[in-house]
């Protein structure tokens, strides 16, 4: 285990794209195991909610571009580690058909201090939404439709 902070700020990206659900507690436990220099862990979990572009959403279907998606997210983690102290980072994104309240995405970042952990976690999540090749379809009782990209999401990413 590296002992000086410069050595461990080169976080190795850990990215999983999967159909299956994930255990956030298990992911947190693995993030905790990032050395005595870690003083802060920030995590974000995104869930399927019942309203989006339309009301009465009953679930989502997520498609991705295999290979490119993993590479784009790994690059975002590398970018985050160049801007902030990032000792460990983990991203999980689910694909396929997801019912209401399912977990969709997990981002976890370990840093020495909370400012870096919050910022890196939020940056990775914001940039993922506008640059990782995923597409969401909302499912309703009346049919299904592809979700449109939001100008507010693009603005958030540009803000970084």
């Amino acid at each position, binding site marked *: 285990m590296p002992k000086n902070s410069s050595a461990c700020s080169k976080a190795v990206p850990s990215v999983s794209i999967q159909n299956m659900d994930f255990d956030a507690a298990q992911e947190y436990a693995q993030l905790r195991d990032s050395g005595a220099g870690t003083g802060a862990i920030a995590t974000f979990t995104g869930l399927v909610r019942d309203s989006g572009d339309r009301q009465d959403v009953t679930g989502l279907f997520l498609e991705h*571009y295999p290979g490119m998606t993993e590479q784009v997210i790994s690059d975002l983690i590398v970018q985050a580690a160049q801007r902030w102290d990032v000792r460990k980072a983990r991203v999980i994104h689910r694909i396929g058909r997801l019912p209401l309240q399912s977990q969709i995405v997990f981002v976890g970042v370990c840093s020495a201090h909370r400012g870096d952990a919050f910022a890196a976690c939020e940056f990775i999540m914001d940039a993922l939404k506008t640059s990782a090749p995923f597409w969401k379809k909302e499912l309703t009782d009346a049919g299904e439709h592809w979700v*449109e990209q939001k100008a507010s999401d693009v603005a958030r990413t540009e803000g970084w």
Partner: protein
Amino acid sequence: MSEQSLNVRFFARLREELGTEHLTMPAPAGQTAADLLATLAKRGGPWAQLNTGQPVMIAINQAMAKPQSAVSAGDEVAFFPPVTGG
């Protein structure tokens, strides 16, 4: 993949509306991604949307690219709608 062709992929709404996931297209020298879109748009019907100014994102060999980016023989060129993950 032959020396003179490239592989085109479509995702999400574009894949559904074009009814096409993969295509092999000629790869003439000096071709850009915009040229390739214009060629595909000439197929008419749903393909015409590729040349109407509606946003189409472009990736070349799985890295984001621009309309003026060159596309060459052997490349994997992907066209898709703005992304909506997370």
